């Protein structure tokens, strides 16, 4: 294990956390479906793992993100496919346009299984290519595609307020 043993490295770590923790927290927040406490736990756990290997990590931010993805994969494997987050308050209010539509969508995202949500976060927030998502999830590219497809379809079921005939990969969903 490589550990920080000098003040200069510790300062570098503190500066990294200070500068990048807001962005990393945003990812953790999405991965956990808007659960602030779970997001804080996820980020802190990832940082503990990162600091333990600090000297070998060339790109700390990428490393922390990878650890969070994998941690989330590992947690959902242990927990099974359960919905762990409640939808944000007011998420299912009526309204189908603009901001309202996105609030409805948040509620639906929060109610996905962690696996479904993680796939969508990796694809649409992190903009990772399918092959990279497959590597993180330990599955084939085909499985990433089918999981993405099913997750989007599930959003439509969870949020019938999304009345428009949105398309998934060019297919009309209803």
């Amino acid at each position, binding site marked *: 294990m490589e550990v920080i043993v000098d003040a200069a490295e*510790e300062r570098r770590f503190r500066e990294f956390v200070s500068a990048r923790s807001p962005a990393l927290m945003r990812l953790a927040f999405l991965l956990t479906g808007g659960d602030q406490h779970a997001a804080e736990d996820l980020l*802190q756990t990832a940082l503990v793992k990162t600091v333990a290997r600090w*000297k070998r990590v060339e790109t700390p931010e990428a490393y922390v993100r990878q650890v969070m993805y994998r941690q989330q994969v590992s947690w959902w494997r242990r927990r099974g496919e359960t919905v762990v987050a409640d939808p944000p308050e007011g998420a299912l209010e009526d309204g189908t346009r603009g901001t309202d*539509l*996105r609030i409805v969508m948040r509620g639906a995202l929060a109610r996905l299984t962690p696996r479904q949500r993680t796939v*969508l976060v990796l694809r649409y927030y992190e903009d990772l290519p399918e092959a990279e998502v497959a590597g993180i999830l330990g599955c084939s590219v085909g499985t990433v595609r089918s999981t993405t497809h099913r997750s989007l379809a599930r*959003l439509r079921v969870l949020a019938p307020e999304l009345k428009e005939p*949105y398309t998934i990969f060019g297919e009309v969903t209803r």
Partner: protein
Amino acid sequence: MTIDELVRQTLREWSEQAPVPAGDLAGSVLRRRGRTRLRTFAVVAGATASLVAAAVTVPALIQRDAPRDDRGAITVVVAEPDPSTETAADPDSSPPKTLMAAGTTAAYSYYTWAEEKISEDRQVRKMTWHRYDRDLGRYEPTPWAWLDVARGGRAAAFLEKVPANRVGVLTGRGTEVRWIALDRPAASVYWSPDASRLLLTNYSANPDESYVMEDGGRRTSAPSRVGFTVVDLAEGRSTFQGLPQHPDEMATRNDLSWADDGTLVWEHSSSGSPVKRYYDLRGNARAAPSKEADTYQEAGLSPDGRRLAVQSPDRSAIVGVQDLTTGGTVPFNSAPGYWIEQSVAWADDERLIVWACETKGDDDCVGGEFRNRLILVGLNGGEAVPLSGYRENSEVAGKSWEPVFTTR
């Protein structure tokens, strides 16, 4: 708009709602890392067994996987018939010169460490052990590379080097040393809670050796743990079990320690929860006993088994105390003038020995979080009793030391 575009927009917008991490996140991480690191490196405080006058016999010749041999059995002195429970402290010294003890526990040894360069690109972490000398009434340096003092403070087991092909046992009577040969070299030794057995962790190379880093850090070699050896002193039997390092562990030193009841051994798990992995004495993975696996806190279970030192449930403290009868956990920071950073040992059922930094007014940790001392604190508050002076920097070789507490 396609639904995936809506998802993309929603995620971007939603992420902006994420709270900014509160408090000193880096500091929290470094403190957690410190505990994790300590666990991979430090000796675990010893037994919680009740205090009785006890003795175990050590056959003159320990045989490996062989029947008992009683030739020339000798007695190891383990505990006083009526040990003191008075508080002993050396609050002006760091490291301490005279005994630190409270209630049913005492630090009969402590160690310091330093990196020594052994070639152009290799270095080795050397530990220097000090043992409490009853006759002189102070800690004295030892020549040993590893030391573990049995409960009672008289008998001791040690390694002359790391790794070593034999372990020495000081019986507690005079200066006689019994040597026990090992099939495979070992880099640590611990007394079982009842002081009848020794647990040694075997390595094929020196686990404390590493590459020299230009900036003063250390990068370790490949893990070399091969298993562990249990020496049953009473039975005169030494048994090796293969148990290579867990693939998730990066540390090269990953010693095995005794569980509280002496029937299982455990290793630290850096993957989070649970924080310890347990094995039986045959090296088979086993479920963790009671709650002791669930805590990073060194102090663990109270002597009566009713309380567990844990992480604080909120940010008002670092250490928490869980009542195992009710399941409730309360933050533990009841030491005026101090910020409690880590629990080390239970002095008795109502008092904890902890590392704490000094606070003045609204200042966090005067001199930084790594300047800390051992204090004795009651669960119900009251004045904290300093047991040692302040370590200059608990993270830095040459400025720090680590005590090893065991039952008096």
